[in-house]
């Protein structure tokens, strides 16, 4: 899309001031993807996030994604050790991390190789590479550097060698701690960003430290800008539309934590697990100031039981986890379902099964959260599709849990957890909060499980309420909460718990359709793939194809009107980040093909022959990949008319 005109690479860029400013080729771009990577602890993350914030402040659409190694301190200069950020900026709203990167900035060639090998860089893209390794004392390192540089140049990458270490050493004693701001300055120059915003950003991130720290980082920033100005022969401009409303720039896990705060929930019980934990980290910090308690339990089971105990006493509690932790909580969730205790559970999905890929992206837990826990255990399942959704989902989840006395599971995933995207600053409303815990006497004659014959709903008794004393139990029980083995009563209880889902479904609205309501192909998605799917669909629609998409935020119960939407199209496919058998595999046919989660659900509920495309490559699904897949299907559909 935004091919960079082939200009000769300045193979060994000279030091600042030693040459006259070069002739610049200024190009205006619609969008661009930048990756910055370093060894762990060298600050590429901070650089990337700062760059994203400056771009957002400028008015650009932004999406940033963390590049995280699986280990805390992977060996320096290792292919698997890349730590950093991918930033996609655009002249319009950006809803996902995009396709292959257009520019890569690397603090050493090995972390760069990791991204090259993973296919994350666009062929022939610009590489800004720290060149200190070229003359390293260790001949092996110098050799690795030269070999990689030459390989990349030979493969057509536009490699610019940048003397980051040398430039920074002139300003700070330990360049390892300053290169990131030097790179930030370079990027501000390359993308024609306002340096005043960059200086403000530095003042903000180092605000707690003394003025000397800020001034030395500003000096590094300016040095980076100047170096790029003097030595690079290209420059970009991504037109921005200034925001008219205040925007917040946060990642999905921060949004979840802020949503917990905004919903009025004040007890979160958790156990550390990647990639969910950062939500609890942030919440711990917030609650220390705002009131509220994050309880780090001894294990996932205890965290769930603790949250259930807290919820039982009146105010809904939340437990935040990821796949393996969710598996452990399931018996407890069954108890909450059976005893009708409201509870909010966040599952930030990662690669599974078992330990799987802790830091990687997957949408593998949908069926587990819908059907998990033994027996029939109906729960509400929601899946935010954007960062903004992560925030508001928590408020909705709290309210639904309390209204229906149900477990509400919010399924986020590793791609939303660490991605940042600006969205309009939420305006707090007291309606987000629950009413105070009822401590009035329970009226005579009301029973603890007075299931409404239509909705299945019953009034919840809270400890402290006179006249409400009863023992709730995970055993089958009657309306008085007495243990009951009677077949009629067992069915009454099952029905009441199930009816609550039907009742909720009646108040939901149909999901919006992105595009026309009729056409050749409909794509259905859920969760963190929303941005990529809609971008692909928009591009195809721009090319004249009759394709639409719809994205489900409620998976259980499913929103009304979905069947009608599906029937408006010749073919329906789901795009999901979980496993599906390939019908072309020699052993696979329709009698044994395993469909992905959503396709299976849609097929069974709506009796529509829903096909699928899935990927479990541990990374966010790219809009370009979806585009290529859909285009292939559309070509087939359009010729088979």
């Amino acid at each position: 899309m935004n091919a960079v005109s082939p200009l000769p690479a300045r193979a060994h860029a000279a030091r600042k001031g030693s040459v006259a400013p070069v002739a610049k080729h200024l190009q205006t771009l619609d969008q661009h993807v930048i990756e910055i990577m370093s060894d762990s602890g060298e600050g590429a993350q901070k650089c990337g996030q700062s760059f994203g914030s400056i771009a957002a402040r400028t008015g650009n659409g932004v999406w940033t994604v963390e590049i995280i190694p699986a280990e805390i301190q992977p060996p320096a200069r290792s292919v698997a050790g890349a730590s950093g950020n991918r930033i996609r900026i655009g002249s319009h709203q950006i809803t996902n991390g995009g396709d292959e990167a257009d520019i890569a900035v690397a603090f050493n060639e090995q972390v760069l190789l990791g991204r090259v090998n993973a296919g994350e860089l666009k062929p022939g893209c610009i590489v800004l590479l720290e060149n200190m390794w070229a003359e390293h004392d260790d001949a092996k390192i110098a050799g690795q550097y030269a070999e990689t540089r030459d390989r990349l140049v030979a493969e057509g990458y536009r490699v610019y060698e940048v003397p980051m270490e040398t430039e920074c050493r002139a300003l700070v004693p330990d360049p390892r701690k300053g290169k990131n701001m030097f790179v930030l300055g370079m990027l501000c120059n390359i993308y024609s960003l306002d340096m005043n915003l960059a200086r403000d950003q530095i003042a903000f991130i180092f605000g707690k430290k003394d003025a000397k720290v800020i001034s030395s980082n500003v000096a590094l920033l300016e040095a980076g800008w100047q170096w790029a100005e003097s030595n690079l022969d290209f420059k970009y401009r991504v037109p921005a539309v200034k925001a008219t409303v205040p925007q917040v720039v946060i990642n999905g896990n921060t949004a979840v934590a802020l949503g917990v705060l905004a919903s009025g929930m004040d007890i979160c019980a958790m156990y550390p697990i990647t990639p969910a934990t950062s939500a609890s980290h942030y919440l711990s910090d917030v609650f220390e100031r705002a009131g509220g308690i994050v309880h780090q339990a001894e294990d996932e089971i205890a965290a769930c039981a603790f949250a259930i105990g807290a919820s039982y006493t009146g105010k809904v509690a939340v437990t935040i986890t990821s796949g393996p932790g969710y598996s452990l909580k399931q018996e407890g969730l069954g108890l909450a379902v059976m005893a009708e205790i409201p509870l909010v559970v966040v599952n930030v999905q990662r690669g599974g099964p078992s330990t799987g890929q802790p830091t990687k992206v997957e949408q593998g837990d949908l069926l587990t959260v819908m059907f998990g826990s033994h027996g029939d255990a109906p729960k509400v399942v929601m899946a935010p599709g954007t960062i903004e959704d992560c925030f508001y989902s928590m408020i909705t989840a709290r309210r639904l849990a309390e209204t229906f006395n149900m477990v509400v599971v919010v399924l986020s995933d590793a791609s939303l957890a660490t991605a940042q995207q600006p969205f309009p600053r939420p305006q707090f409303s007291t309606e987000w909060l629950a009413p105070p815990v009822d401590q009035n006497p329970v009226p005579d004659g009301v029973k603890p499980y007075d299931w409404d014959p239509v909705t299945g709903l019953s009034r919840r008794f809270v400890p402290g309420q006179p006249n409400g004393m009863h023992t709730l139990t995970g055993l089958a029980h009657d309306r008085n909460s007495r243990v009951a083995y009677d077949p009629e009563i067992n069915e009454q209880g099952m029905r009441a718990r199930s009816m609550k889902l039907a009742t909720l479904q009646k108040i939901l609205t149909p999901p919006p359709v992105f595009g026309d309501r009729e056409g050749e192909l409909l794509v259905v998605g859920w969760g963190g793939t929303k941005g990529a799917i809609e971008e692909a669909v928009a591009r195809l629609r721009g090319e004249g194809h009759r394709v639409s998409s719809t994205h489900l935020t409620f998976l259980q119960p499913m929103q009304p009107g979905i069947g009608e939407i599906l029937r408006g199209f010749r073919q329906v496919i789901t795009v999901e980040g979980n496993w599906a058998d390939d019908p072309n595999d020699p052993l696979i046919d329709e009698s044994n093909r395993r469909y992905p989660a959503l396709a299976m659900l849609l097929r069974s509920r709506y009796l529509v022959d829903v096909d699928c495309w899935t990927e479990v490559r541990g990374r966010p699904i790219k809009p370009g990949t979806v585009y290529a897949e859909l285009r292939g299907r559309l070509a087939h559909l359009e010729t088979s008319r």
Partner: protein
Amino acid sequence: MSAATLCLQHFAEENHALEDYQGGVPRWCKGCGDNAILAAMQRLCRDEGLRPEKTVFVSGIGCSSRLPHYMRTYGFHGIHGRALPIAEGIKLARPDLHVFVNTGDGDCCNIGAAHWIHAIRYNMNMTVLLHDNHIYGLTKKQASPTSPIGTRSNTTPRGSYLDALSPLTVTLGVQNVSFVAQAVDWIPESLFHILTAAYRHRGFSFVRILQRCPEFVGNMFEPWVHDPQRMLMLTHADGIRVSPALQKIYRNQLPHDPADINRAREIASSDDPIPVGILYRNPEVPCYEDLRGAGKLRTADQVRGALDAELDKFTVWPQ
């Protein structure tokens, strides 16, 4: 309403009869030690004037864990092994509630063992009754972790292979332990006094109650039941009172200061004679709910203020 009427009304509200704490009719087996524990608990609630609506009995799974159903208070009959974390959540959210936990040797010392260790360390203000009958009852006679070596059961037909775990020494070995006592179901008077002392202790009060299961291990405690000399009554000015009547029967007495943890650990190591009384008490150990500032109300304005303060950190204002 006159002051006298108000006073009477208040009296009626604050004073309860035993019946006020009696829930469903117990379904335990004839001669089950759980009955004695239930009777002691109901008496304790009455004598301590606990408001039924402010009292919660939490349990796991097993014969012991049916107890909440037989109280007329709030009750939470949970899942196997998880009574303690449920009780902790209740107490942290609502420090105003009186929390009791009924758990068995399988529930607490096997499937819930991880929670037990950490509950001691949290030291939340609750009274924990370990109904220890040395056997799985509800699942029909399997060896439990406290079954003495050689116990014949359905899973150990030739006798169990391992030495029994001692709930007392384990509890006394965990940091922040603040109250440990042992009682037996066949001396109801001391059971009641020990439970009362446990309830009055502010912290995690752990009472192991040796309890007979006539159905599956009918002879387990018979030698002790029939020979008072094999019982060791712990006495001290800071311990529990042993009445003159009991003193005549249980003459084997040992002065023990509950503040002495090392001596407590020694006494706990003995299972013959069986020590009865308070082994350890330390009222100075902080409670987790106090450390965490539990029970503070947060107003809507506070939520708004906190949210706005956080959002300010991440807001990009229009230029």
